[in-house]
């Protein structure tokens, strides 16, 4: 059976070049980078090279990069670490309604523990308003946390404008760039960012590795206590093969990004247009054009439910994802789609295709051949489709 993976925003395969580099560090150069012997020092050098590679992709200095176990840890470290270090300065934090749970839930944890939280709304395309943000800033605001690109609908936020605003008000600015890294240009200096989260497994690097950019001079209370690795910011034996793999993945991403984004946009637009042409009652979620990640397609297919779509696609070898409540076992569909003021019943039928490096035109053709049949089958079963037809 043909297998078509269109869930790259969930995770990506590891690039073969990255994987084979990692192998060397698993089985041959396996020393602990904190050891002073040569088994350790050869790994230390490679870890520091990786720090350069990650820093280069986001316009940072190497010593501003702290490696973590992933995006979630980096988000927690940034938000909890700033809250703890700057609590005497103030206790107000601003974020948006469409953040990843690693940001939103962390902020909400703080809101239950002595902090005040403003959650900015978004417009129907999922984009935060800079004016709203300007009005939300208070004298006791210590942190603004806004993502660069949204993982569900691909909406790109006006980060540079927010960064300027944050700087003017001397408020720290954290950006979750997990989804934008390697897909669109990211530059902490140009965007006036103080803290930035990135994650390896979204850019063809290994799972279980991420990094937090911490602008020089910013204090953070660490999440872990222990051996004092990563300049005391992140204790624990360094995941050297993972870090080295992440570094390589950043290097590759930097080299390939421009060409890849152009190709992905063509496939993205072909897929989206094809769906709109072949299936009726479809709503596009998120912005169009340059405010959207080059690899994201998100649609709501009315009168059918997302998990059913996913399962049916999966039976044909196609992997996608959905903001349907059923895919997460919760009762509510995606908080992102709801924040975009989409009615529950339409949000349940949402479908995200996130494209990647190895996808081809044939993959897209295959989806466009199969998806309409699936939708037709499910709609034949759907009492909602009946109702709509009868109402016409």
């Amino acid at each position, binding site marked *: 059976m043909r297998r078509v993976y269109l869930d790259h925003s969930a995770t990506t395969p590891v690039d073969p070049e990255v994987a084979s580099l990692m192998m060397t560090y698993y089985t041959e150069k396996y020393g602990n980078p904190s050891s002073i012997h040569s088994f350790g020092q050869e790994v230390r050098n490679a870890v520091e090279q990786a720090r350069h590679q990650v820093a280069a992709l986001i316009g940072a200095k190497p010593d501003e990069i702290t490696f973590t176990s992933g995006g979630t840890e980096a988000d927690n470290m940034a938000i909890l670490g700033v809250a703890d270090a700057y609590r005497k300065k103030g206790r107000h934090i601003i974020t948006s309604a469409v953040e990843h749970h690693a940001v939103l839930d962390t902020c909400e944890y703080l809101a239950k523990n002595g902090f005040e939280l403003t959650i900015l709304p978004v417009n129907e395309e999922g984009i935060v308003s800079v004016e709203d943000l300007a009005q939300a800033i208070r004298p006791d605001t210590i942190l603004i946390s806004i993502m660069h690109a949204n993982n569900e609908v691909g909406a790109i936020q006006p980060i540079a404008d927010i960064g300027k605003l944050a700087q003017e008000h001397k408020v720290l600015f954290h950006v979750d760039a997990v989804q934008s890294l390697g897909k669109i240009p990211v530059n902490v200096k140009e965007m006036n960012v103080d803290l930035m989260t990135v994650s390896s497994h979204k850019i063809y690097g290994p799972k279980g590795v991420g990094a937090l950019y911490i602008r020089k001079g910013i204090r953070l209370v660490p999440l872990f206590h222990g051996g004092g690795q990563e300049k005391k910011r992140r204790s624990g034996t360094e995941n050297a093969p993972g870090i080295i793999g992440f570094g390589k993945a950043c290097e590759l991403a930097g080299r390939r990004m421009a060409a890849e984004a152009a190709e992905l946009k063509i496939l993205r637009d072909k897929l989206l247009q094809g769906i709109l042409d072949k299936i009726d009652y479809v709503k596009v979620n998120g912005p169009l054009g340059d405010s959207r990640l080059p690899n994201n397609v998100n649609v709501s297919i009315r009168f059918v*439910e997302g998990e059913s779509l996913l*399962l049916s696609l999966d*039976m044909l070898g196609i992997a996608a994802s959905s903001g349907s409540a*059923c*895919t997460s076992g919760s009762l509510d569909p995606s908080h992102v789609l709801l924040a975009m003021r989409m009615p529950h019943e339409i949000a349940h039928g949402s479908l995200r295709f996130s494209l990647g490096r190895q996808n081809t035109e044939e993959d897209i053709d295959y989806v466009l051949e199969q998806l309409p049949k699936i939708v037709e089958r499910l709609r034949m*079963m759907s009492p*909602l489709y009946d109702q709509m037809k009868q109402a016409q």
Partner: protein
Amino acid sequence: MYSAKVMDHFMNPRNVGEIPDADGIGEVGNAKCGDIMRIYLDIEGNTIKDVKFKTFGCGAAVATSSMVTEMVKGKTIDEALTITNAAVAEALDGLPANKMHCSNLAADALHEAIKNYKEKEKAKG
């Protein structure tokens, strides 16, 4: 995630459709929650002669709907009333824990349809 039986009933659901002028129709759930199940019954004497369903919902919702129609066909109303959601799930070799509450409503829809039938019968007098 799902058992082979669930996937079979999801991909090849039995008794999809409507019964025109059904003797009983039952519906549970709503679109807001992501699941709607509607069951149509054709009843002769006390026996369920035919049964059809339409469902909007996840894999478990479709599969339990399909399964309940298989379980109930040919049964008497009283027998049908003893079928529980748990029994439907069991007949499907179980459901993931997070699906047991939100999507396992097919027996409820069946019971609603029987209630609807009884009410109609009563109305006829």
